[in-house]
């Protein structure tokens, strides 16, 4: 029942989260299901892993969208489908107004100059038999891109730009540390001046001190080349630092999507609350005062996701607060990713701003701004009621 309601609602157009007019990339109801086959000679499909199950978002030029969630939530699959390393099962991926979801490989190849990727593991994403010069120069050769002073000069320029010594042109990946290898991956990604870079956990394999270097480099490059990033990560602090907008994913669906400061100061989805409260804060006193929302159990299987809201099996609000009729709603009806406030999408039947969760995060000025904004809204609402009462009052006199 819930599924048909969902498709009907979206049949007439695109999801509002994907309908920003200025978007460089707009993803609408994207699905990626991996078939499960059984049988030795005649293989038939017996099910599907719903890795990504109806995801919609958009990214404006020069913006960074953070995709955050636990492992198995489909964030990396989303990144791979967007950069067309995987074929989507359904949905559209509009890049500069064209739907690239159905592009063939050869047609996609010309677009590779515009969409690039940085991978998580700097050890396995570089060919150990190729020198750095070959690795970073590969995009120029494959795309037959013209260079002013030859490929070598161009590559050495790139190496210098990302903080590597250009004299190491002929070295092999194993001669570099993890942080340096990630710089090589970044140099390769920016070689052809792409518009969009999909970064799949680019800093999670690095040590803290090196991680900060790479994050700063990514930010500098974004400013210099007006790059747009999709930044996949599981670390909420890193995502807060680098993103302009953040999408929280769970079991193949987006649970909450909004501006970074709004998300971190006024989180509305119970899953976001749980994620935020689970992040350990490097301050022993704050740590001891904090209330932690512990999720019970493990992530359900994406082969057979729970009915209704996918999060209801682990949702603390469902377990502790909701009444039986409300629970019925959570079990039966899939909550749509709806606008609950201005530019704040939440997929929950009972969203609620948890100030106590946000209070653990000192958001400074932005929190004040949000509070002022909420106060203004309240004043406006009171004024509207008063106006309505004033309008209604003279009526009986007539």
């Amino acid at each position, binding site marked *: 029942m819930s599924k048909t309601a969902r498709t009907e609602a979206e049949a007439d157009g695109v999801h509002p989260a994907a309908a920003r007019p200025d978007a460089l990339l707009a993803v609408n109801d994207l699905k990626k299901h991996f078939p499960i086959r059984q049988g030795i000679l005649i293989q038939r499909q017996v099910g599907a892993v719903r890795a990504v199950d109806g995801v919609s978002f958009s990214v404006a030029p020069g913006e960074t969208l953070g995709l955050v969630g*636990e*492992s198995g939530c489909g964030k990396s699959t989303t990144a791979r489908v967007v950069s067309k390393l995987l074929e989507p099962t359904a949905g559209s991926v509009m890049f500069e107004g064209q739907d690239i979801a159905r592009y063939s490989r050869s047609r996609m190849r010309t677009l590779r100059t515009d969409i690039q990727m940085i991978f998580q593991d700097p050890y396995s994403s570089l060919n150990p038999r190729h020198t750095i010069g070959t690795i970073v120069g590969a995009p120029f050769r494959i795309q037959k891109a013209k260079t002013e002073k030859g490929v070598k000069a161009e590559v050495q320029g790139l190496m210098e730009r990302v903080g590597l010594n250009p004299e190491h042109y002929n070295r092999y990946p194993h001669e570099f*540390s*993890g*942080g*340096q290898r990630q710089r090589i991956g970044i140099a390769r990604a920016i070689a052809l001046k792409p518009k969009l870079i999909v970064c799949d956990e680019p800093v999670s394999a690095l*040590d*803290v*001190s*090196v*991680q*900060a*270097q790479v*994050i*700063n480099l990514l*930010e500098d490059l974004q400013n210099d080349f007006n790059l747009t990033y999709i930044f996949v990560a*599981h*670390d*909420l*602090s*890193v995502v*807060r*630092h680098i993103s302009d907008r953040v999408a929280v994913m769970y079991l193949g669906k987006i649970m909450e999507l909004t501006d970074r*400061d709004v998300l*971190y100061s006024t989180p509305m989805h119970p899953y976001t609350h*749980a*994620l*935020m*409260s*689970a*992040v*350990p*804060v*490097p*301050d*022993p006193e*704050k*740590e001891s005062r904090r209330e*932690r929302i*512990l*999720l019970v*159990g*493990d*992530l359900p299987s994406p082969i057979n996701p729970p009915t209704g809201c996918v999060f209801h099996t682990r949702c603390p609000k469902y377990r502790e607060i909701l009444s039986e009729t409300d629970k019925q709603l959570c079990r039966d009806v899939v909550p749509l990713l709806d606008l609950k406030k201005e530019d704040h999408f939440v997929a929950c039947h009972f969203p609620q701003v948890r100030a106590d969760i946000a209070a*653990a*995060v*000192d*958001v*400074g*000025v932005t929190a004040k701004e949000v509070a002022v904004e909420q106060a203004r809204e309240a004043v406006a609402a009171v004024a509207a009621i008063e106006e309505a009462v004033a309008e209604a009052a003279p009526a009986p006199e007539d």
Partner: protein
Amino acid sequence: MQPQPAMDVHVETDAPSAFLSVRDLRVHFPTTDGLVKAVDGLSFDLARGQILGIVGESGSGKSVTSQAILGLHKGSSAEVSGEIWFEGKELVGMREDRMRALRGNEMAMIFQDPLSSLHPFYTIGWQIVEAYREHNKVSKAVARRRAIEMLDRVGIPNPDKRFDDYPHQFSGGMRQRAMIAMALVCDPKLLIADEPTTALDVTVQAQILELMKDLQREFNSAIILITHDLGVVAETCETVVVMYGGQCVEQGSVQDIFYKPQMPYTWGLLGSMPRMDRTRQARLTPIPGTPPSLIQVPRGCVFHPRCRFRDRVGEACTVMHPDLEEIDASGHRARCHIDKHQRSEIFANEIAPTL
């Protein structure tokens, strides 16, 4: 507990009163490229029921230290010197068979990657029973009951059914729980957890850390928690050892390390991580450069090639190896040439406002 004959006036050779006492531990690995000084002169004490955090980047010697305490370097080419006192027994020179009786029984370890530290061929239950029966003369049925009880204790649903499952049938978080059950099956007095939550998601990490704290309160065991995540340290530990280049560069209570750190490396660590609990900074302040090679450890202070404050001292940093100097009576120590008062000033004026 009997006192040993003194061999060196500087090295205390009497059995110390602390539950676990590591004295001037050195673990060196001879390789064809040169001598790798993985741990070079580490000392710390740990009381019963306390949680000690060892923090540092990869290659700082954290894991090698824990392996040395468990005697896992015995029989390898590693050169281990110094002393490790565990309840009055000296472990560095202990015979392998006596060490074996302690390992898994009185001291146990949880490893980082639960998938590669569980045997894929045997069931989870069998592996826990094996550990229990190694140290306790009990029947298989008793051991099975004990294993199921432990699986239940660490929060695995339907433990009697999951007992016969293989590791691949468990999720990452459940495997780590099973590892903890295995480590705790003999009620060890000392538990060493080497990055126990690094491979896990934050929500699962919160569950595991909560579980470890519960179990520590219940069994009054001492825990050494090895991690690179300062957030995890702030949440769980009481005392902290900060390691860099195989040496302890700062140690103290968790309050000392987070509220009045004294060593530029600790400042760097605190400054380079994006934090959820503070106003978002426009830019992070990373520590420049890369961790040192353990074959050619820098002369003088190990941290000087990356230190922003070395011009405050002059020559000493590049020439003289600083001592682990005591800062106050509570056991806060730091290894730095900058004057104690000047360090406090630098932290208050230049570092604290940027954190």
